[in-house]
C-alpha cells in the first residue's frame, strides 16, 4: 500500500495514462475525421476493417510502422528526425496540466496555462525545423508560411487569454474551472458582466486555436493542393505518422483549453454530477466542430489569413482587453 500511494507510482500511472490517451485519440480522431468527412459528402467512409471500420487506424498504424524510415539525400538527418518529436512531445507534455476532473489531473501547477502556451510555441519550431531539415522547396515554403501564421495568431490568442486571466485572477486551470461552477451561465463564455464581448472572445479563441494547430481552413503547413504535402512532403512511414499524431494531439489540447477557459471544463451545465464525463463530452463536441469546419470551408489564401488576424482578430481582442479591464475596475 505504501508503494502504491508513493509519488513514483502516481507519476508513472499518469505518464502511461496521458500517453495512452493522446495516442488513442490521435488514432481514433483519424477514424472520426474520415467518417465525418464521408458522411458530409454522402459517402460511407471506412467500413471494411472491423465493425464500422473501427480497426482501420490500427491497420494504418501497422502499415506506417513497417515502412522503411528513408532519409532523403541532402537533408539534415538530425533535424529531420527531431522535428516530428518536437510536435508530439509538447502536445503530450501539455496534457500534464489539463484537469480532466477536479481530482483527475497529473500535475496541478499554479502556472498551468502559462506552461501550455510555452509548450505550444515549441510546436512552431518543430514545423520550421521539419521544413528546413527536409531540404525541399515545398517544405521550406510551408515552413515559412506556418511560422508567420503562428506568430500572427498567437497574439490575439494570448490577448484573449489575458482577458480571461484578468477575470479569473489565476493561471491554475483547475481553479479556473472551479470558478465556473454551478449553472451554465457562470461559464466564462456567458460571463457578460465581466465583459460584454465574452462570446466574441470565445469565437476568437477558437479560430486562433484552429490556426495554431494548422487546421483547415488555415492548413498552410500542409497545403496539399499547392505544396504537395507541405512540410510532410519528404517524411516516410512513421516520421509522417508522428507528425500526424502530433497534429491531432494538438487539436485535443486546443479544444481542451477552449473547454476549460470558456465552457466550464468538467462542470455540468445544470450543476449536477460534475466530472470527467462532462469534460470529455464538451471536448468531443468541439473536436467534432473542428472536423466539421475542415470539411465545410476551402483553404483561405495566405493574405486572407494574415488580414483576418491583423485587421480583425487583434483589434477586437485588444478592445475587449481594455473593456474587461474597465469593467473589472468599475464593478
Amino acid at each position, binding site marked *: 500500500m505504501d508503494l502504491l500511494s508513493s509519488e513514483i507510482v502516481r507519476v508513472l500511472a499518469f505518464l502511461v495514462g496521458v500517453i495512452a490517451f493522446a495516442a488513442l485519440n490521435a488514432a481514433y480522431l483519424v477514424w472520426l475525421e474520415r467518417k465525418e468527412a464521408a458522411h*458530409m459528402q*454522402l*459517402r*460511407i467512409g471506412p467500413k471494411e476493417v472491423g465493425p464500422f471500420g473501427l480497426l482501420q487506424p490500427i491497420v494504418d498504424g501497422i502499415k506506417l510502422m513497417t515502412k522503411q524510415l528513408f532519409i532523403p539525400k541532402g537533408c539534415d538527418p538530425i533535424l529531420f528526425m527531431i522535428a516530428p518529436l518536437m510536435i508530439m512531445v509538447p502536445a503530450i507534455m501539455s496534457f500534464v496540466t489539463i484537469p480532466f476532473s477536479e481530482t483527475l489531473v497529473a500535475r496541478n501547477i499554479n502556472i498551468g496555462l502559462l506552461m501550455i502556451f510555452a509548450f505550444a510555441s515549441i510546436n512552431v519550431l518543430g514545423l520550421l525545423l521539419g521544413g528546413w531539415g527536409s531540404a525541399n522547396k515545398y517544405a521550406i515554403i510551408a515552413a515559412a508560411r506556418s511560422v508567420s501564421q503562428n506568430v500572427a495568431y498567437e497574439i490575439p490568442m494570448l490577448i484573449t487569454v489575458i482577458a480571461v486571466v484578468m477575470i479569473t485572477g489565476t493561471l491554475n486551470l483547475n481553479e479556473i474551472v472551479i470558478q465556473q461552477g454551478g449553472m451554465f451561465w457562470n461559464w466564462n463564455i456567458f460571463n457578460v458582466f465581466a465583459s460584454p464581448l465574452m462570446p466574441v472572445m470565445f469565437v476568437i479563441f477558437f479560430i486562433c486555436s484552429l490556426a495554431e494547430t494548422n487546421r483547415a481552413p488555415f492548413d498552410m503547413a500542409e497545403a496539399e493542393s499547392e505544396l504537395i504535402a507541405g512540410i510532410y512532403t519528404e517524411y516516410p512511414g512513421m516520421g509522417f505518422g508522428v507528425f500526424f499524431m502530433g497534429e491531432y494531439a494538438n487539436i485535443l489540447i486546443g479544444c481542451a483549453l477552449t473547454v476549460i477557459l470558456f465552457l466550464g471544463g468538467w462542470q455540468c451545465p445544470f450543476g449536477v454530477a460534475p466530472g470527467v464525463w462532462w469534460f470529455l463530452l464538451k471536448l468531443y463536441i468541439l473536436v467534432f466542430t473542428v472536423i*466539421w469546419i475542415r*470539411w*465545410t*470551408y476551402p483553404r483561405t489564401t495566405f493574405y486572407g489569413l494574415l488580414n483576418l488576424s491583423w485587421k*480583425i482578430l487583434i483589434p477586437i481582442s485588444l478592445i475587449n482587453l481594455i473593456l474587461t479591464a474597465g469593467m473589472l475596475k468599475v464593478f
Partner: protein
Amino acid sequence: MSKYFGDIFGGFYSLMVGLGITIKAFFQPVVTLQYPHESLKMTPRYRGHIELVPDPETGEALCIVCGMCQKNCPTGCITVAGAKPEGSKKKVLTKYRLNFTTCSLCGICVESCKPNAINFSKDYNLAGPRKEAFIFDLLKRLKEKNG
C-alpha cells in the same frame, strides 16, 4: 467603419450558412452503393446486348428464323441458322450467334423482328480476357436460362 463591421457580420453569417449545409448533409442517408455486394437494378430502357425471348408456355425461342435481323444488321454481327424438323411446318432455330465485338447496339434488329423474339438484355458488367468471350451463343444462353 460600417463596411468593416458589415464585412465581419456578413462573412460570419455566410460561414454559418456553410456549416448548416454540411451538417444537413451529415444527417442525410448515404448514397454510396457497395458495388460488389449490392448493385442498382437497371432501368427498363437500358440497352444491353440482345437476347432471345422465350415462349412463355414452352420456354423455347419465339424466333421463326426469318433472318430479318441478320439482313438488317449494319455491321453483320448476327448469324442465324434454322432447320425444319421432319413433319413440321415451321423452321426451328438451331443457331443464333452474336458477335458483340462489332455490335453497335443500334437496335435495328429488335425493331425489325416481327414476332418480337429478341430484346435488349440488362447485362452491363461485361468483362472478359479474350475477344472470343464476346461472341455469344444466344441459343445456349436461353437454354441455360431455362435451366
